[in-house]
């Protein structure tokens, strides 16, 4: 078996063991029903929810918001990153602030967003994007830094303009780092949007989780958590696979 395949199997085994342990702890009563239900029941509850399409509208709402937030944070993040990269003086003063940004509870700005954008998707999308944009900016900077000087010189010899140099040379060259930024932006968008829905409780999967918690409906709550975790894992697996293909074809930076 190739190393890659055996790594994959090992991963499945590790996850499987963890789930099995949880199942055992729940069924044995070591973890009470008030706290958590066994994973098998979570899966069953999720299946029911998906089958009767109860929360379909909410799921669609969340999916749309997340997609929009991802797109917004990736494009804005890249644009801002490229801009800051081109202005070294600005970069020098901004850079120390980036890691501080992660401490800002951006979702507290939700109420303010609502006043500005009204209740509804826009506020959620904007705050979801705000969460992830810095990760994209930071990784764009790292990626553009890594483009060898000879690439830019080659572009100049070939007389490509500024925009074409950026799109045809620098963007592909920076892609490995950009992918890292995209992975983070995706993660943060999901977090931002669902956190917003959780707090604002107007619509979406986040709202349903909040309601279920308040009603002590642990079945629904855990089913929805499982849905989110499952979706996130699939997204991540997809991105990871794409990243591996890139590394194999282009070699690691």
């Amino acid at each position, binding site marked *: 078996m*190739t*190393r890659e395949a055996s790594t994959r199997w090992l991963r499945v085994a590790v996850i499987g063991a963890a789930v099995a342990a949880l199942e055992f702890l729940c069924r044995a009563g070591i973890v009470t029903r008030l706290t958590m239900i066994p994973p098998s029941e979570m899966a069953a509850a999720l299946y029911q929810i998906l089958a009767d399409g109860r929360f379909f509208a909410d799921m669609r709402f969340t999916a749309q918001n997340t997609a929009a937030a991802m797109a917004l944070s990736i494009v804005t993040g890249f644009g801002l990153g490229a801009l800051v990269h081109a202005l070294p003086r600005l970069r020098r003063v901004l850079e120390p602030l980036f890691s501080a940004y992660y401490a800002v509870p951006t979702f507290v700005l939700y109420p303010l967003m609502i006043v500005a954008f009204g209740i509804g998707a826009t506020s959620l999308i904007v705050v979801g994007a705000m969460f992830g944009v810095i990760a994209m900016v930071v990784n764009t900077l790292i990626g553009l830094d890594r483009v060898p000087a000879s690439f830019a010189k080659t572009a100049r010899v070939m007389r490509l303009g500024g925009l074409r140099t950026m799109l045809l040379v620098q963007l592909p060259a920076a892609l490995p780092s950009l992918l890292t930024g995209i992975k983070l932006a995706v993660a943060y968008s999901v977090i931002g949007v669902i956190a917003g829905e959780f707090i604002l409780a107007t619509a979406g999967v986040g709202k349903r989780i909040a309601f279920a918690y308040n009603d002590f409906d642990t079945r629904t709550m855990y089913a929805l958590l499982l849905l989110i975790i499952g979706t996130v894992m699939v997204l991540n697996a997809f991105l990871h696979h794409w990243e591996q293909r890139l590394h194999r074809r282009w070699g690691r930076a």
Partner: protein
Amino acid sequence: MDSPHAELRGVSRIFPARDGHQEVHALGPVDFQLARGEFFAVVGPSGCGKSTLLELVAGLQPASAGDVMFEGRAVSGQPPEGIGVVFQEDASFPWLSVRDNVAFGLRRAGVDAAEVKRRVDDVIAFMGLGDFSHAHPAQLSGGMRQRVCIARTLVLRPRLILLDEPFGALDQQTRLLMGDELLRLWRETGATVLLITHALDEAAMLSDRVGVMSARPGRFIDIIGTGWSRERDSRIVARPEFGAVTARLWNLLREESIKALGHG
């Protein structure tokens, strides 16, 4: 001394398949003996397994078949005591000063501080690094950094010194001077030296014997003796025998190099 310092008996190295690549038969089978105190160079086309050969002798890689012996004992798993390696890439630790770099191995081996200082001072002077002992590698040229790596290896007093294309990243003039340095080092320490290089003139100029490897999987096509005296330096390039040796090497290598280019 009759028994060889190091020996390979029927040694092969096969890299197992991984990540969508096929299994690679990198080297061998190779039979080869290294005499104590000699200066031996290995040349061969790119990809022929020269570096693999070196790492097998050093104990950094396990042989897939055959025995690797050093000083009469089998080499397996762990690099044996008494062997020093200078790698192709810059192996100097960028976060330590030159002095701390050179002292690194000694300190980790638990040698007491006074002895460390004495030996480090000696080797730094020996390698001409005296003026730079408090600098960091990033502030030095490529040649100086390789000297730091050599010093770090030397300070442990290895009986066998392995060098994997140590001067590959240097310009020609620096290479020639470093070659002279290497000869001086060899004479004054009495160590056995195994040098991997792709530069035929370097091999012809520096060594007592040169082993020519075939294209992958690498095997020795021939081993040529140069017959130089021990007190030699780079000026032997003026001698007609030097041209003859280099020509012989290229004759052997030319075919193999063309084959290797095809492999890609």
